[in-house]
């Protein structure tokens, strides 16, 4: 549209945002690489250690425990979220009042804070004061209250999984509903005339035509789970014995309470590398969807 000197005018409009990103994202990124090569704390003078922090991570059992736990959590919660999210999307896709209301209600926990929802579920799962133990005792599933958090790592994780499924189920559901709506109606009608049952139509038409959305939502969900922090910080506090400390939790512990900023930066860089792989996959998928 604008000609001549306008390319510099355009740049002028972008400059404030560009400057912000350079100062508050790019610079810290560079700083992180620099810090990861040093023994760095706020008190003692920094010392160059080369790859020392990365070797330290390799030999740190807690690093592997946290990574393994984060991957396990991600591997467990992702299929639950995707499958139940898709089933609820199929259930509520038709625009009828009850289904639209159900959709809105399923989505509601997505807008509240992860901190607030984690505190809420921390209370619900509480040993003495929680309603979940009360309900389970009243219906006769258990005789004595269960210690949900802090005693057993797996039990703690399942309790967190329940709370997060409640919190983010609607995220996938709404995106799946939008994708199902984008499937041309004629294809389904033609299949119906040919005598295809509902589940045949889902399997042969809806699923393949929404596959791209499923893949994208899966990747977004995986990235979110790999970066899990709030729910574990609040509900398990990493207990028992730091077995439920996620990767971000470990970075937090090392950088802040322990003040080992160099080691924290090295752990951050490793995490950023893992996330980068997921993000690149996500961008390739969404780019292909434009073609």
């Amino acid at each position, binding site marked *: *549209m*604008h000609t001549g000197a*306008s390319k510099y*005018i*355009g740049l002028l*409009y*972008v400059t404030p*945002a*560009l400057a*912000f*990103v350079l100062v508050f*994202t*790019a610079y*810290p990124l560079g700083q992180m690489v620099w*810090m990861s090569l040093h023994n760095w704390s*706020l008190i003692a003078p920094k010392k160059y250690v080369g790859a020392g922090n990365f070797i330290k991570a390799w030999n740190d059992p807690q690093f592997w425990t946290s990574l393994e736990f984060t991957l396990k959590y991600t591997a467990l919660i992702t299929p639950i979220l995707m499958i139940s999210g898709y089933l609820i999307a199929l*259930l509520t*896709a*038709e*625009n009828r009042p*009850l289904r639209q209301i*159900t959709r*809105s*209600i*399923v989505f*509601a926990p997505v*807008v*509240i*804070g*992860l*901190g*607030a929802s984690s*505190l809420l579920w921390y*209370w*619900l799962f509480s040993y003495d*004061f929680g309603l979940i133990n*009360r309900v389970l*005792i009243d219906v006769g599933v258990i005789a004595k209250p269960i210690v949900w958090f802090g005693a057993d790592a797996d039990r703690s994780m399942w309790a967190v999984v329940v709370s997060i499924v*409640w919190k983010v189920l609607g995220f996938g559901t*709404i*995106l799946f509903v*939008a*994708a199902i*709506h*984008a499937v041309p*109606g004629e294809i389904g*009608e033609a299949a119906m005339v040919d005598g295809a049952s509902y589940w045949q139509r889902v399997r042969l038409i809806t699923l393949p035509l929404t596959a791209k959305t499923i893949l994208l939502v899966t990747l977004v969900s995986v990235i979110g789970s790999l970066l899990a*922090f*709030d729910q574990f910080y609040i509900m398990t506090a990493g207990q028992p014995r730091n077995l439920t400390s996620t990767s971000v939790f470990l*970075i*937090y512990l090392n950088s*802040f309470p322990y003040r080992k900023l160099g080691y*924290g*930066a090295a752990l*951050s*860089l490793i995490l*950023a590398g893992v*996330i980068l792989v997921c*993000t690149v996959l996500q961008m390739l998928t*969404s780019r292909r969807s434009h073609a």
Partner: protein
Amino acid sequence: MSASSGTALASAFPQRTPQTGFASRLVQGRQKYLISAVCVALSTVMLLPLVASVLASLKSTQEAAAVPPTYFPHSLSIDSYERLWNYQAGLPTYFSNSLGAALLTILFCLALTVPAGYGLAKFRIPGKEALFVVLLLGLIVPYQALLTPMFFFFVQLNLHNSLLGLAIIHTAIQLPFSIYVMRNAFEAVPRELEEAAIMDGCNSFEVLLHICLPAVVPAMITVSLFAFITSWNELLAALVIMNKDSSFTLPLILTAARQQTSIGGTDWGMLQAGITISIIPCMAFYLLLQKYYMAGFLSGAVK
């Protein structure tokens, strides 16, 4: 997901064509009831935790600490809210800290991304593709990984323990999404309008102000809404840079209150009151601005 918008939700899903035969009609009738029953059950399960929390916040002090807990409050009381009001530096302090950080985040997001969206959408800029990637850097590097250097940087700049510093981090989190939404909104403004204004002698800033800005108000609402929700709910960055009790945000003080087990254990009633208070603005904005929420969500959530 490229063409999806808020309207996608409202678009009619292909209705079933009626099948013939009594048996299939009977099956369909049964299915309809089954689907309705599942919908009601699902909605109930999803709402129960929220209802339980609100009810628990209205229990009396003694009842909130009862073992085992009661399902419904025997009598309604605002004791828990009163204790929250006076907790440590007081609810007004924490509430206004959260609100202040959220408002600053909205302000920064709009001030940075409205011009940036305009520049990216309406001008030929050398190396635009590369520029766009740099602007979306925050998508590639998660902010959780950047907090360690950010903290050190903010200590040097004396931005730790300040709402300004927190709002800067929250803006950095929201910037890629906001730029994306604003650029798309400006791209959708018809060129004819601008060309007519340029013929009349308007410069590019006047075009932005008088022609484009009114057309992108919905996108600005979307950007503000998401900035608010992100900032209002964010915990980790606040935990890292705010270490003075009086500069805590709402999620931070509630998390701290959970841990306070020294004197008589956790005050569960007060905690539920705090959860209720922190959920209300999010729910209110979601219900009031659902159209803008869905528009932003569907266009930007998975990009």
